[in-house]
């Protein structure tokens, strides 16, 4: 008996010690966990319910089955405009932003004097980028009397009403998004610095030029970082809101009516919370599908150095 009891007692003691050790961890995440449950998980579950109701905030939600989704896909003339604007934005702004971010990261990698200053300068737009102030500035830059038109006037190019012209407005927002390349740039930079210089030296000895080195060394070794950046940027791209809200307000002709902006308008201007919840859940599914597709295909193009090791 005693021989059995001793190990079990020490097991219990180990358990207690493990719990004590973990306690401070739980204490640390406690506030976050509480806030997550209260302010993220609970509202999400509630909104899933609202998605199947008509809910105007004033009166209790009424069960509406799938009618919100039916309206969305078959009756709402603005829905497909919002989808079109968002897709256009994601498929242009995100690749361009990543290309610019990678290009600048390559330039900054070399480690010249004053590197830190450039890094800070290029990162600055991202820190302030999502802010209302930058969006307001953008309005001015692309205004009819803005700096862009003032400069083009010097070359005799007639002024363009960028923000009022359906052919132009969205591209001002794409330009704004591309300009906010700072955070993917920093991540790329960290990734580039992790690539051992021996590879490049060996390639140089074998006579490889810069393009060859970029394609056969940099891209494969950077691919996990590219994957990370791509996923994060796709998610944030689908959720773009502030810029369109401030700069164009969704006008002209709904060409900049980004999906998140449309959700906001339906929810807080028309008080159609049920319909807005349905819109939001469709957006979440679409983002999920895009992320899943990128993940699935990633095994074909992402190279993990340590796949077989460790």
């Amino acid at each position, binding site marked *: 008996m005693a021989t059995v009891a001793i190990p079990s007692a020490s097991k219990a003691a180990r358990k207690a010690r493990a719990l004590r050790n973990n306690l401070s961890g739980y*204490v640390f995440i406690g*506030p976050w966990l509480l*806030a997550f449950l209260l302010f993220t998980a609970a509202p999400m579950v509630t909104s899933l319910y609202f998605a199947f109701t008509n809910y105007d905030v004033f009166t209790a939600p009424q069960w509406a089955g799938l009618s919100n989704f039916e309206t969305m896909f078959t009756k709402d*003339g603005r829905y497909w405009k919002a989808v079109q604007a968002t897709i256009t934005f994601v498929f242009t702004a995100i690749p361009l932003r990543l290309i610019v971010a990678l290009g600048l990261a390559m330039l900054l990698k070399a480690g010249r004097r004053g590197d830190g200053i450039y890094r800070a300068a290029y990162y600055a737009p991202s820190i302030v980028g999502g802010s209302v102030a930058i969006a307001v500035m953008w309005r001015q830059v692309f205004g009819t009397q803005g700096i862009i038109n003032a400069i083009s006037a010097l070359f005799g190019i007639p002024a363009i009403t960028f923000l*009022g012209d359906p052919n132009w407005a969205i591209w001002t927002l794409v330009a704004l998004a591309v300009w906010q390349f700072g955070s993917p740039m920093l991540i790329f930079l960290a990734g580039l610095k992790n690539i051992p210089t021996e590879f490049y030296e060996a390639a140089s000895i074998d006579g490889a030029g810069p393009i060859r080195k970029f394609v056969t060394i940099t891209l494969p070794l950077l691919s996990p970082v590219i994957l990370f950046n791509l996923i994060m940027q796709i998610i944030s791209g689908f959720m773009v809101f502030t810029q369109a809200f401030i700069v164009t307000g969704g006008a002209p002709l709904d060409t900049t009516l980004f999906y998140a902006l449309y959700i906001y308008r339906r929810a807080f201007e028309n008080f159609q919370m049920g319909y807005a919840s349905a819109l939001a859940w469709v957006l979440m599914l679409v983002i999920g599908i895009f992320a899943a597709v990128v993940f699935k295909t990633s095994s074909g193009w992402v190279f993990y150095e340590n796949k077989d090791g460790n």
Partner: protein
Amino acid sequence: MKTLVSRRKFLKVAGFGAGAAALAACGGAAAPAATAAPAKPAATTAPAVVNTAVNMRIAWWGSQDRHDRTIKVIELYQKKNPNVKIAYEFASFNDHLTKMTTQAAGNSLPDIMQQDYAWISEWAGRGLIVPLEEYAASGALDLKDCADDFTKGGKVNGKLVALNLGSNSQTFLVDIDLFKKAGLDMPKDNWTWDDFEQIANTIKGKAGLYGAGSSLWNEQIWKSLYLSLGGWAYSDDGTALGYTDDKPFVDHLNRLLRLSKAGAIPSLADDMANYYDKSLELQAMATGKSASDSMWSNQIVGSWKAYGDAKNLKMLPLPRPAGGKSSNYIKPSQFFSITKDSKVKVEAAKFISFFTNDLEANDILFAERGVPIAAKVRDALKPKLGKSQTEMFNYVARVSNDVQPIRPPDPTGANDVVKNIYVPQVISPVLYEKMKAEDAVALLRKEATAILAKNKK
């Protein structure tokens, strides 16, 4: 020994501290109103003035000028009634509605809220704002000096649920000197849209300016066009459109398209980029690009200031369609209502009464919300008025001789019609020349009918 803190203990304390800080941060964002209400002074002074301490909240929308004036009046009221403490919230028009709706859902509406004509029937219908007759009967709300014509706009189903803060009508503000320079006579009050088109083209030709500013396409014009022809945008019961003939509106849109192509009014691209929803200082007339601008009459006070006091300006009624009657109606610019959530409704009524009748308060407010509804306030203000207020008082008096009766407040769903159909799917495609006016107006009828039909009981 005792002063030493073990690493684990330190971590625990730090953890709790961080947690508390995080919670405090979360709480802080949600409760600015709580910090605004002076909890401590109330607790210490309460024993001295037993049972008479009154705490109220009031919310409104408007410009900075209005915020400043309203806050001064609140301070004046608190000075005269030391037992009353008034907390206030203000926002822009759209933010105000969002805030109020959210508070209505949470049963935490302020005691007094500013209301717009378009919303009162819905808010009263849901019981969110309460009838005011009993306070008028008890004398808390003094309406003896306010003619029925000025207050009846706040009635829903025969009950007064909102008190008008000033009277308004739509207007064209025109620059007399620019009209003269273009060789134009001042139009008569019964001018038509055909007259307007001719005038705008002349101004473009002679002075190289726009004949009018932003938003001749907005839903107010749509409503007024059909008002002039004996209808309205919505039927009286709110279950359908209030007109059967689409042609006048098709004609109006085609006219706007002609004018904007001729450069006689801003194109929609120009309007959206530069004028629509922008501050008064940026409007076409303020920047010297236009000879006239359409607006609500109370906005003349801010507009004239923005356009320059030296300008010679005149207010005209809206143009009417050929063969139509007046396109104008007298609209309460905004209201105060007492909400269901108020625990001090009598005190709230007293404040509204003060706001309406007190001469000192109205010296501060200075008709910024429109022509005051109390006769003695109007009389007391008249000698003190500047040019813009005088023009506004005279205009509202002049135009009220030839106006249409006010139509019912907007039905449920009107917001949906305007924001999701009228502007994005009718006005925009037509004025950007992506769709023919006939087709767009037919689409408006189809979609609006579907939305409004939901109001059928």
